[in-house]
């Protein structure tokens, strides 16, 4: 990651931590591209691992652990350490110890999500959720509704929608098998 890129992404994440959802979405898309490029080269099609799973796992980890980033420290090493941990973890769960030697994101171009992997089964990600969480998560993610719209549609309070969304995301992260 170049210093300029680090600065730009740090700026986005700082805005996101202050509640800017658009900045957060941009940040996550850029990070997804970087992580996807890194993982794509490590995870072959024969490994039985779905690279896009690891991308999503990493995004969830970054989200749920965003309070471990210090706004005054560089972003690259932080993102890199989380991605690396998630890649090693995915391999470990598939019964293979690997020493993952990932260089920094420096010389890699971000890559797009492939159509084939995007046809993934929705149920697989959502099956671990309670029905209430599933309603909320799918309204916001698949239909692109806002918190307010979701609350109106489901007849819930906004705070309840927020709680269900947060717990739902934590449950999806758990499903990936990270344990505690």
């Amino acid at each position, binding site marked *: 990651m170049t210093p300029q890129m680090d600065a730009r992404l740090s700026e986005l994440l700082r805005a996101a931590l202050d509640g800017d959802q658009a900045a957060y979405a941009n940040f996550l898309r850029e990070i997804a591209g970087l992580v996807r490029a890194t993982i794509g080269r490590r995870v072959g099609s024969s490994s039985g691992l779905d690279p896009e799973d690891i991308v999503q796992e990493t995004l969830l980890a970054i*989200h749920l652990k965003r309070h*471990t980033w*210090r706004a005054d420290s560089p972003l690259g*090493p932080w993102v890199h350490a989380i991605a690396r941990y998630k890649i090693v973890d995915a391999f470990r769960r598939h019964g293979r110890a690997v020493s993952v030697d990932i260089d920094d994101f420096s010389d890699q171009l971000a890559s797009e*999500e492939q159509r084939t992997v995007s046809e993934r089964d929705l149920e697989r990600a959502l099956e671990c959720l309670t029905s209430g969480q599933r309603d909320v998560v799918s309204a916001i993610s698949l239909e692109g509704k806002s918190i307010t719209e979701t609350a109106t549609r489901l007849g819930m309070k906004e705070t309840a929608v927020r709680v269900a*969304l947060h717990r739902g*995301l934590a449950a999806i992260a758990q499903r990936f098998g990270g*344990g*505690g």
Partner: protein
Amino acid sequence: MRTDDLIKAIAADTGRKEAPIGRTWLLCVTAGFMLAALVFSVLLGPRPDFQAVLSTIRFPLKFLLVAILLASTIPLVQALARPGARPPMWAALAAPTAVVIAVLVELSVLPREAWVSSWIGTNLWVCLTYIPLIGLGPLAIMIAALRKGAPTRPVLTGAMAGVVAGGVAAMFYAAHCTDDSPLFVAAWYSIAIGILAGVGALAGRYALRW
């Protein structure tokens, strides 16, 4: 779920924010100290001649060694809980180095006949029982704090948390124990703290993955 859809859901989840992990960790270390103080005062209490021995050399030295251990390992664990923070692992050598120096000096000033009795002391089993016992509560609090963090080396992080908990316990236990020789401290405090490090490593393996 498509990654783009997941991103929409994540971006909408901006409501709850955890406290910075460094602050959580230091708060929980403080809470660990208070819990250790409570357990210590209920179970053991300071030795009766506490005031008098403060002016000796060996008694205060015990606290200095434990203080070095805590000062070097508390920031280390704090860094271990943050991804990409490059924890200064050499800091873990500060306390062992200080202990080795203390032992060498002790051996040079103590007559050879007194070596074994200073090493074995009279409180060996009390030490091996109470340091782990006093440290267990603080260790549980510290593991709970670290679960909020993101340690990329969970076993090592748990073990080092065990060392911090052991240091907290030793800080209080040292006020009770009448064996002040660095030979005793080097042998038995180390084993007692090592037991907590082992418990911490095990806890790290199961509780600190994320």
